[in-house]
């Protein structure tokens, strides 16, 4: 093989760079996200009414899709009311006013998991987040 | 084939390093623009496009001009262009790359660029511009690379290339026509609302592009063993001459229509650009320089004995290029926005960050051009 030395060194450097995130983070214990639902609004609710617009399981995996559909529906179709397929209850489709009214603890409810997953949604560039006391 | 760009003289590498340095600085400045927003440019609510979009517009023209080599060679069998069609095609590739970068750096939300594809909107000229530009880039890469590859192996190019070349000939005017439609289809922007806009764009493109090619050919002759040949350069000179005259003629039509009709909205942009309005006249010296360069270059070019001298031809070509760069890359855009829809004057002048980012995009273009020309010239040197 011509230039085998150069090729092998090149390959090693390439593999080193590509796998950098793995050994950079290896051995670092990252605390599992710990979501909190204990906001004043939620606590005031009777136990039986403490239900999100959809099931917990759906929201966990599909909240981004739901929010995407909400915003298209509100901005583009002029619909404001969402009928929950879980409870049949009606909710105003609004991240800023509906979601964050109950989940006013953005740091513990949104950021905790987003930081863990290293996703950076740009919702808060525009939507005003609830005022929270520094923890 | 690309490996030919990895070996070169010290001068070649110094040039590459120089371009990389400008790109590096420009990239850092762009990061700042990305963080702060387009507020670091000189653009404003009233003049909402500036240097970036001007460069984009100008360079679409340079890209389209490749057809001025390809068409005579393939459709009229103009043999002297055989050696240099590849230079035209690769210049088109570099220009389209710059066009795309200029659009990108002009975007307020560059991370959302894919929205143009996610939500395709055929009623928007910008959608079609994205389509024709990426198509043109692809056509020129495919054609240039295939023909050069065949040449380096000493065989005839594959048969399927011919129809692709014909397609690229038809495609070239479309990219600049569509770019003109970005402007000429807007109500209320009198300076742009003109049926001859696309024709003027093509005329200025077919003079600025070949003018640049003349200069590039002369540089290649000095720095490499590749010689485009006197005849080819003289042919290019004729093309520059005719299209520059056409361009000046079309500009004259605009001036006549505006001033003989005496409609204020049509006269105002010209008055702003060439005389200034209400004491605002930042572009006046530039626009007169553009006019002067145009007149001098046309006089030099129409006299056969002057055009025949390569030094004079190069000088006239540089004047053509500069004149059109000012006219189309700057004045045309700003003139469309001044005065604003309220008949008020807000002036525009690029800021330093804006200029540095612009230079960096040009450096990217020259880097692409250098690498592609290096490959092309190396192949030609080997074959010869």
């Amino acid at each position, binding site marked *: 093989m011509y230039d085998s030395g150069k090729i092998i060194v090149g390959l090693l450097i390439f593999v080193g760079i590509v796998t950098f995130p793995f050994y950079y983070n290896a051995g670092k214990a990252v605390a599992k996200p710990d979501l909190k639902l204990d906001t004043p609004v939620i606590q005031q609710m009777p136990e039986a009414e403490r239900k999100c617009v*959809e099931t917990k*399981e*759906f929201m966990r*995996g*599909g909240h981004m*899709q739901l929010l*995407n*559909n*909400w*915003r298209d*529906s509100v*901005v583009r*179709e*002029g*619909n*404001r*009311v*969402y*009928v*929950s*397929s879980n409870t049949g209850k*009606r909710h105003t489709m609004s991240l800023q006013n509906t979601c964050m009214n109950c989940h006013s603890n953005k740091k513990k409810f949104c950021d905790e998991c987003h930081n863990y997953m290293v996703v950076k949604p*740009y919702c808060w560039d*525009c939507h*005003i987040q609830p005022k929270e006391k520094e923890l | 084939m690309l490996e030919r760009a990895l070996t070169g003289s010290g001068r070649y590498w110094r040039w590459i390093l120089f371009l990389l340095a400008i790109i590096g600085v420009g990239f850092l400045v762009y990061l700042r623009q990305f963080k*702060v*927003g*387009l*507020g670091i440019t000189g653009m*404003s*609510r*009233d003049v*909402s*496009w500036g240097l970036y979009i001007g460069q984009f517009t100008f360079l679409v023209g340079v890209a389209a001009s490749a057809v001025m080599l390809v068409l005579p060679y393939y459709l009229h069998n103009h043999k002297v262009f055989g050696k240099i069609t590849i230079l035209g095609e690769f210049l088109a590739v570099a220009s389209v790359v710059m066009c795309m970068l200029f659009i990108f750096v002009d975007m*307020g*939300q560059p991370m*959302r660029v894919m*929205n*143009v*594809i*996610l*939500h395709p*909107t055929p009623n*928007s*000229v910008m959608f079609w511009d*994205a389509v024709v530009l990426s198509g043109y880039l692809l056509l020129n890469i495919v054609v240039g690379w295939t023909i050069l590859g065949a040449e380096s192996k000493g065989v005839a190019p594959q048969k399927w290339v011919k129809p692709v070349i014909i397609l690229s000939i038809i495609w070239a005017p479309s990219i600049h026509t569509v770019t003109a439609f*970005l*402007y000429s289809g*807007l*109500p*209320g*922007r009198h300076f742009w609302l003109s049926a001859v806009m696309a024709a003027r764009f093509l005329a200025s493109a077919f003079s600025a592009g070949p003018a640049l090619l003349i200069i590039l050919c002369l540089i290649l002759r000095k720095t490499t063993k590749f010689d485009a040949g006197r005849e080819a350069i003289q042919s290019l000179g004729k093309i520059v001459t005719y299209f520059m005259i056409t361009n000046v003629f079309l500009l004259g039509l605009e001036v006549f229509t505006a001033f003989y009709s005496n409609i*204020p*909205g049509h006269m105002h942009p010209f008055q702003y650009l060439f005389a200034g309005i209400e004491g605002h006249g930042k572009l006046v010296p530039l626009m007169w320089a553009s006019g002067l360069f145009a007149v001098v270059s046309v006089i030099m070019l129409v006299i056969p004995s002057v055009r025949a001298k390569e030094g004079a031809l190069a000088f006239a070509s540089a004047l053509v290029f500069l004149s059109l760069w000012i006219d189309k890359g700057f004045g045309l855009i700003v003139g*469309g*926005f001044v005065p604003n*829809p*309220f*008949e008020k004057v*807000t002036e525009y002048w690029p800021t330093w960050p804006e200029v540095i980012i612009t230079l960096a995009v040009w450096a990217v273009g020259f880097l692409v051009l250098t690498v592609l020309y290096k490959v092309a010239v190396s192949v030609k040197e080997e074959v010869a």
Partner: protein
Amino acid sequence: MSMDRRQFIKIAGISTVLGFGGTLGLSKLKDSWASEMLQSPEALNAKHWAMVIDVKKLTSEEHYDKAISACHRAHNVPNIGNPKEEVKWLWKETYEHAFPGMEQEYMPEGIKHKPFLLLCNHCENPPCVRVCPTKATFKRESDGIVMQDMHRCIGCRFCMAACPFGARSFNWRDPRPFIKEQDENKEFPTRTKGVVEKCTFCYERLAKGEMPACVEAVKDTKALVFGDLSDPNSEVRKILSTHYSIRRKPELGTQPSVYYLIGGEENA
């Protein structure tokens, strides 16, 4: 939920593979959700929203300030202070600048220098909508409002070049530092840098059964009238059929939905 998560992933995955970048999946999802998204019962509806501005009835500076600040507060419009980067949804302009080419030397001084309230005209043939490459700005077929989807805008500013009325503003930088905290409307978003914005005829207030903020703010003057142009019995139609009204740059054929009364006298 009529579609579970697994179904969603399947559709999104397949359509992504097919090269639709998930858009096919999204539209399918939307269909399955559509029955569950409704208008609020109190929403105000019209086939063609329009505004009539009776300039004669705006008699003091205070009227203008009230209308403008109501609008700008309701929508968290920043006060940047630099005319080059200014964001405005509703603003004042004198007659000669609002109606360039229509001014003449001998017209009444009272009109020549009278401020006119300007806003997005919500044109019937909006050039901004025609040029937008992502449908971020679009005309609502239901009521004619020209909307701006700030989530989708890529900041190309083609709409600003296309609008003959200077109604569109670009966020040249993050607008948030220019919104006073005590003025902030916590129920409405701000914008981010790099997107275009403009008046939306208070679509968010109409959805709640409220009139636009500017109309509400100067209600007692009756200077701003908002209503359905397609309804012959609406107040806007009654005014337009009995008064001489003008629109900005009618020769461009965009068909503005904002009308101005400058005489004020009945002229049936």
